[in-house]
């Protein structure tokens, strides 16, 4: 995320047409939830900073939000997340659930089948994505063959892998994060090979978070996994080709460009645009100016939805390759409007609160 921001900051500062000049102040809370509050307080109160980029996890975002409300700060949140939130103090440039898990469930049902095995890290990102996918499977008569959660950081995955191989689901859906995920990809591939199963084709692992940044950590089992994302480094467009070559020149040692870097890059550009339009860097002025703002991002046109401050973006499904990038299997033809509460994307029957006194007796 930081590298993506730095790339955008230098572009903006070097651009003679841009009125905004950005001076970054960096704090690294090191992934420790409590440290995010201290960091946010320091940036908002002591340094009097209005625009802050970051927070990968939902728990860190929820922790800092009250301080942004209190001090009129704007959090630019560049990560995909599980939705069910909107705030006047947050601009969300990552994908909402209707832009990641719904397209993935459609892809899995169309190409792989309706028997899924769910494995995840034990927190809200996993629970909520699994709930959404489970409901989709139920609607079409599918089955959740198995479901298991592990503490964040758990890496003993062999027993689980063997269980999954013996259950032979049509696909595996993972919401494991960090090294738990890497260990799982390796263990499943190993167990599948031992059983003579072509795992990538017959029992693919799908996720809504796997990115280029993580593939090297998986090692030899990194290829053949499905990921739902609004950005892959292999998108072929002039904007992305330029972004990727700049990225490789400056941050190539970090690996390939990925969705989180791109979303942060987009967020910084949207800030610069909004400040230029508003003629001010103040909270209310920028927040209002960013509504309906558009940016020709590496992933394509990104538009900030004026109602919920999430972005309209194109969903994509990619399959990881051994060279550490993704082959793009499917791209939505048009940007998908963000629907953080899944109000409009839900095909389930709507509630009738009045006059439904009859029930089916089973």
């Amino acid at each position, binding site marked *: 995320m930081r590298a993506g921001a730095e790339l955008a900051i230098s572009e903006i500062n070097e651009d003679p047409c841009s009125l905004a000049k950005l001076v970054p102040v960096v704090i690294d809370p090191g992934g420790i939830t409590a440290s995010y509050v201290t960091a946010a307080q320091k940036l908002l109160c002591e340094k009097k900073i209005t625009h802050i980029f970051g927070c990968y996890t939902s728990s860190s975002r929820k922790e800092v*939000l009250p301080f942004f*409300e209190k001090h009129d700060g704007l959090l630019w949140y560049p990560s995909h997340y599980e939705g*069910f*939130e*909107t*705030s*006047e103090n947050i601009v969300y440039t990552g994908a909402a659930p209707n832009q990641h898990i719904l397209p993935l469930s459609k892809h899995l049902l169309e190409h792989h089948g309706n028997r899924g095995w769910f494995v995840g890290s034990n927190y809200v990102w996993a629970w909520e994505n699994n709930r959404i996918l489970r*409901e989709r499977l139920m609607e079409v008569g599918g089955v959740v063959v198995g479901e298991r959660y592990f503490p964040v950081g758990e890496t003993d995955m062999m027993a689980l892998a063997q269980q999954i191989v013996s259950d032979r689901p049509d696909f595996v859906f993972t919401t494991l994060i960090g090294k738990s995920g890497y260990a799982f990809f390796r263990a499943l591939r190993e167990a599948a090979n031992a059983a003579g199963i072509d795992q990538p084709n017959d029992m693919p692992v799908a996720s809504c978070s796997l990115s280029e940044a993580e593939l090297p950590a998986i090692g030899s089992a990194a290829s053949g996994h499905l990921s739902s994302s609004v950005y892959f480094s292999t998108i072929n467009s002039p904007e992305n080709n330029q972004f990727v070559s700049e990225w490789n020149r400056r941050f190539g040692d970090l690996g390939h460009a990925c969705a989180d870097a791109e979303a942060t890059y987009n967020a910084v550009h949207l800030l610069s645009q909004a400040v230029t339009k508003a003629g001010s860097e103040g909270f209310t002025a920028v927040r209002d100016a960013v509504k309906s703002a558009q940016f020709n991002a590496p992933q394509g046109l990104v538009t900030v939805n004026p*109602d*919920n401050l999430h972005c309209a973006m194109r969903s994509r499904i990619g399959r990881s390759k051994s060279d550490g990038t993704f082959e793009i299997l499917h791209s939505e033809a048009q940007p998908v409007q963000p629907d*953080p*509460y*899944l*109000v*409009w994307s*839900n095909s*389930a029957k*709507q*509630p009738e*609160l*009045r006059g439904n*006194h009859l029930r089916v007796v*089973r």
Partner: protein
Amino acid sequence: MKRSIIQNFRGLHGLVVHPDDANRHALVSTLGKLGLTVTAKCAADPSELRNCDLMFIDADEGMEAMPEAQGHMTALESVPCIALIGNEAPSRLARVVRRGCASHILKPIRNSGVYAAVLLAVNGHELRQENAREIEVLRKRLSGRRVVTQAVVAIMKLHGLDQDAAYELLRADAMNRRLPIDQIARERMFAGSP
């Protein structure tokens, strides 16, 4: 079977009764994001209470001036009600309790908390309605017990049967005709020949 909860509120009509201020603005805007259509008023009349699926009422001011229609409605006719609470004084909160509010939102109202309050109110209300229907059924059955006992005693006398056989006669009749047993008992008693 565990019933799934109601989690999407698209198309429901919400009535917000609250002075026109930042709280109301934040509430109405968040409800819009949740897909509800909203009417916002400073005061409401009874007809409006009947034309909404869900209502949000100010617990601080004017709750006593609200039409009492809701109070006269049975639990089955009422709609879920969410209290908008600024002042936590017991006298204010007593009104929230008496009105049977199914959930609440604390002021100052922000986006966070609105979805949870709507979800809890709608699902809690469903449960209450289900309980109310169940109570209604049980109450009817209970009031029928006396006439069933009368009919059993009458059948025992008339046919010289014991208590179990007399009851069985009634029950078989009710089963055959697919009617509640108290209705069969009532018919026999009024027909004069049990």
